[in-house]
């Protein structure tokens, strides 16, 4: 019989009533992949793009050349990393709670992905700029963004630096190196390249970092960004957070038959690395390397952070409709907080008691700020709003038609 063409439809490893199965993923072993020279070219970066860079082994030991890269660091930097992640988880918890209580319209957690943004951000300098998605609140937290505006925006009250103009989760803080988030997926990625070009053109010594989800790598702007970064070689780090899901859609629908997202970036002539995103040390080490590479003018680099979206996509989503309930627990690369904790304990720099206490402290701090901020109003109990501000900032100067409309509004 003659063969004829049939379409292929990528499938996830398991659907709701099936057993989670990540056996198709080759996660390699910790410490196996080396540190490339800063000036590596894409054509020589095959193993980094196709393999998986890991630092912590199953017992929490830091092994291999990437571990060496950061081994001089004080244990306090790791404790800070752990505290950042605990704080992040406390914030997610409290914010989710607020949404469940109707105090805000919408929330979105980053559970399981805390190591990525937290460790990356701590390697940046003031002046560097992230172009994040909605799931990189970690960057803000590790940039010590105060909790007041964070919660203020959740409640669109007087603490909200966006004055209610933006969605609860679409933060912006120039000072903290956090570019205003767009609801339109992907758009920030090429903007990051443009910003990095400005870094190079003005010679300000700073760099930019674009962030994108695995699903959004399908967007046109992913292509634009890879292409223009490859052409102009600006100091940009193009991060891809592959958390296996895009709402209900399995990552296979975005990757197609690409080996990895890093490999796709490499096709553009950009050296790319694929890294265990649940390994705080791996993230810190690779980020350090990548940031140095970019800053010193060796051109762009792409990093695929391999992780798992443990929570629902957002408060509007119920993942049990499309994947096994216990899939997160089956993720072969564990939980980033647990893993860093184990590592620190094995170093003798941490203990279960200190951990429990740190967890409680984080939650207390967050809860206290939340309370204060809530007193200025929430969705169920809104603070005073001034609708006329909706006309401010459409343009630098208000043109006549907006003045007329503001008048017509009668406020």
């Amino acid at each position, binding site marked *: 019989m003659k063969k004829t063409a049939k379409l292929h439809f990528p499938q996830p490893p398991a659907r709701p009533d099936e057993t989670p199965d990540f056996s198709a993923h080759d996660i390699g072993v910790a410490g196996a992949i080396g540190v490339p020279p800063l000036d590596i070219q894409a054509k020589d970066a095959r193993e980094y793009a196709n393999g998986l860079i890991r630092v912590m082994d199953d017992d929490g030991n830091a092994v291999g050349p990437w571990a060496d890269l950061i081994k001089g660091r004080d244990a306090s930097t790791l404790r800070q990393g752990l505290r950042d992640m605990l704080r992040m988880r406390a914030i997610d918890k409290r914010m989710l709670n607020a949404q469940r209580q109707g105090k805000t319209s919408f929330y979105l957690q980053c559970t399981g992905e805390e190591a990525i943004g937290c460790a990356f951000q701590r390697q940046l300098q003031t002046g560097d700029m992230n172009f994040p998605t909605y799931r990189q609140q970690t960057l803000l937290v590790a940039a010590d963004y105060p909790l007041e505006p964070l919660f203020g925006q959740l409640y669109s009250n007087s603490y909200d630096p966006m004055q209610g103009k933006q*969605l609860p989760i679409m933060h912006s803080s120039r000072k903290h190196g956090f570019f205003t988030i767009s*609801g339109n997926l992907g758009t920030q990625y090429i903007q990051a390249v443009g910003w990095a070009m400005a870094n190079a053109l003005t010679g300000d010594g700073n760099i930019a970092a674009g962030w994108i989800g695995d699903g959004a790598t399908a967007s046109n702007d992913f292509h634009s960004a890879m292409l223009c970064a490859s052409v102009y070689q600006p100091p940009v780090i193009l991060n891809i957070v592959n958390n296996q899901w895009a709402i209900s859609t399995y990552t296979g629908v975005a990757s197609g038959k690409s080996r990895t997202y890093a490999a796709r970036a490499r096709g553009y002539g950009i050296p790319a690395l694929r890294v265990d995103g649940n390994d705080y040390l791996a993230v810190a080490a690779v980020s350090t390397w990548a940031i140095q590479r970019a800053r010193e003018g060796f051109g762009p680099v792409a990093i695929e952070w391999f992780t798992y979206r443990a929570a629902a996509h957002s408060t509007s989503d119920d993942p049990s409709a499309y994947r096994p309930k216990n899939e997160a627990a089956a993720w072969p690369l564990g939980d980033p907080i647990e893993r860093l904790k184990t590592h620190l304990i094995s170093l003798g720099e941490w203990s279960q008691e200190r951990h429990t206490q740190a967890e409680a402290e984080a939650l207390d701090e967050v809860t206290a700020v939340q309370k204060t901020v809530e007193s200025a109003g929430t969705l169920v109990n809104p603070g005073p709003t001034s609708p006329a501000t909706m006309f401010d900032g459409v343009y630098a100067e208000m043109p006549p038609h907006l003045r007329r409309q503001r008048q017509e509004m009668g406020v």
Partner: protein
Amino acid sequence: MPTMTMIEALRDAMDVKLTQDPSVVVFGEDVGYFGGVFRCTAGLQEKHGQTRVFDTPINESAIAGMAIGMAAHGMRPCVEVQFADYVFPAYDQLTQEASRIRYRSNGQFTCPMVVRMPTGGGIFGGQTHSQSPEAVFTHVSGLKTVIPSTPYDAKGLLIAAIEDPDPVIFLEPKRLYNGPFDGNHKGKSVGWGSHPAGQVPEGHYVVPIGKADVRREGHDLTILAYGTMVYVAEAAVAQAGIDAEIIDLRSLVPLDLETIQASVEKTGRCVVVHEATRTSGFGAELISEVQEACFWHLQSPIQRVTGWDAPYPHATEWDYFPGPDRLARALIKAMED
């Protein structure tokens, strides 16, 4: 007759056509296994198989481009864009390609496809889940643009759109998915079950594209509305106590100018209402046509009640949304002038 929400009516329309016509395919982001973030395609993949209903990568221009290729081949794709706010990456494929395949090939290739998308605000969605982009499609010759306001029309129009030989932009007022909404956001929300237009026949029927619906007859003034604004108009009329005729356009291109003209010639006054930003909104087109066709009948300037010329704000959404109060004020003004 069964009662359906607008979501169910849309789903039923796709189900009817998937069943009837093997060339119909349905795809979009999260549309396949999961059935769409608004559940409009829930169950369709299970019933019709994944060669008929499937998930796509997150790339709206790819969705449109694939649909164009399939449609040119002879299939009838009906695709979903998750929010109308995300249709813009597909703007090039839709306005420069789908709209002109027939014209530029002088009829050798055609493009029978439907692009469905939830539109409008009222769900605290902020700037990127609330927009109403109809006007940037109505400007493009070769495209049709429709927008239902009831489950009955939703099903009938969607079937008509899928059967249409040309590309149709199909806007779904998301605030009407589960029930009529008159802009009184503090009021109790009601479902379609209790509304006559929630009665939706089973099986195949069409609501023809290009025909408006006179939703309320009246003598004092004509309100031109579509989508959610139809209910806002009803509320505003009750509030203002004016005997207005309310026309639900349903189809923006082609426009049922005949029905509009007859009404305005009768009433002599006209108010246009839409949720989209004012400047260059579809209201401007309506006003232009009405003032030209009915100039000598007009007793007062045609008013526009619209979203303001600002991005849709999150917290002050209800001050942005053109609700019944604002519309009622405009009605009174139009009567006074």
